[in-house]
């Protein structure tokens, strides 16, 4: 192995990234080359120095307390946010609930009225003779046609004759 190749591989050897055979080859060269050996020990010393320097970086004494206080503030803020969200939902939801209740009452009223009319019609039809019932039915049918035609006139603004044609 040449010095140039050895120098390129020293870092990999320090990091344990060389295979056994490569490591042995490098080791053999380092034993015979004092220059490369000096560089290798120097790089190992630098590594150790970096680790020691980083391990001894002074940590601000109250940093953990500040982080914990930050969490407490975050939790309080989250709680507040939850309360505000619920309040907003209630405030927004209340009118909707009132409208929905009104709509329900209206639908219920229509249903009750319809049911009452249906009941009255059924009772009347059973009380009256068959021929009269037929006449009532036919009259109701004609009135419905007229009613629909009137609505079409109102909507389209066309003449009665035009609607019928």
């Amino acid at each position, binding site marked *: 192995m040449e010095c140039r190749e050895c120098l390129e591989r020293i870092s990999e050897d320090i990091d344990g990234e060389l295979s056994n055979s490569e490591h042995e080859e490098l080791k053999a060269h380092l034993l015979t080359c004092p220059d490369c050996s000096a*560089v290798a020990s120097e790089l190992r010393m630098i590594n150790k120095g970096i680790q020691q320097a980083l391990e001894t970086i002074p940590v601000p004494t109250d940093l953990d307390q500040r982080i*914990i206080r930050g969490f407490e503030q975050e939790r309080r803020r989250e709680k507040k946010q939850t309360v505000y969200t619920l309040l907003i939902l209630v405030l927004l939801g209340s009118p909707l609930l009132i409208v929905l209740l009104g709509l329900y009452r209206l639908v219920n009223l229509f249903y009750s009225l319809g049911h009452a009319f249906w009941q009255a019609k059924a009772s009347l039809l059973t009380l009256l003779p068959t021929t009269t019932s037929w006449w009532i039915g036919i009259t109701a049918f004609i009135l419905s046609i007229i009613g629909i035609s009137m609505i079409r006139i109102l909507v389209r603004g066309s003449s009665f004759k035009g609607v019928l044609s």
Partner: protein
Amino acid sequence: MAEFNRELIAKVCAGDEESFTVFVKTYTPYVYRTAMAFLHDPAEAEDVSQEIFLKIHRSVSQLNDLYAFQSWLKQIITHSCLDHLKKQARGKPIPIPDLGYDLLSQDTPEHWEQHLITMEALRNLNPEYRETIVLREWQGYSYDEIAHILGVPVGTIKSRIHTARMQLRKLLADEAQ
């Protein structure tokens, strides 16, 4: 990194707030020093430390395997610091560090001076070399893992680490003269 305490981590994962406080106290030095190793700015390192613990607090309950905690934590710390470095590179210039080594430090003055020189040399490295050497020396990642984290080929990592060490050697030698 602080020694793995399975009981404490289990409680933290279960959402126990008191245990989380103990966890913060235990891991703050490691988190802060890692942030300092990457960012070289105490104020930024404090912000990132806070941010890291917040991320841990939010996502620790999703951790299924307790024994994967150390690598999961290391991953969060590394990615937060690297993200911050990217923002730093886009925005303001790298600050002049006030590393906080002072005479009140427990180390002897000779030692802290040597540490200061080493940190200064580390700071003077090209940012790409610095982050690679920190990932290797401090975080203990393998070349393959660093290549994966930084999204570059393993060959590039080998070259960066070697160049970084040679540059540090030169910088420290210059300082010694």
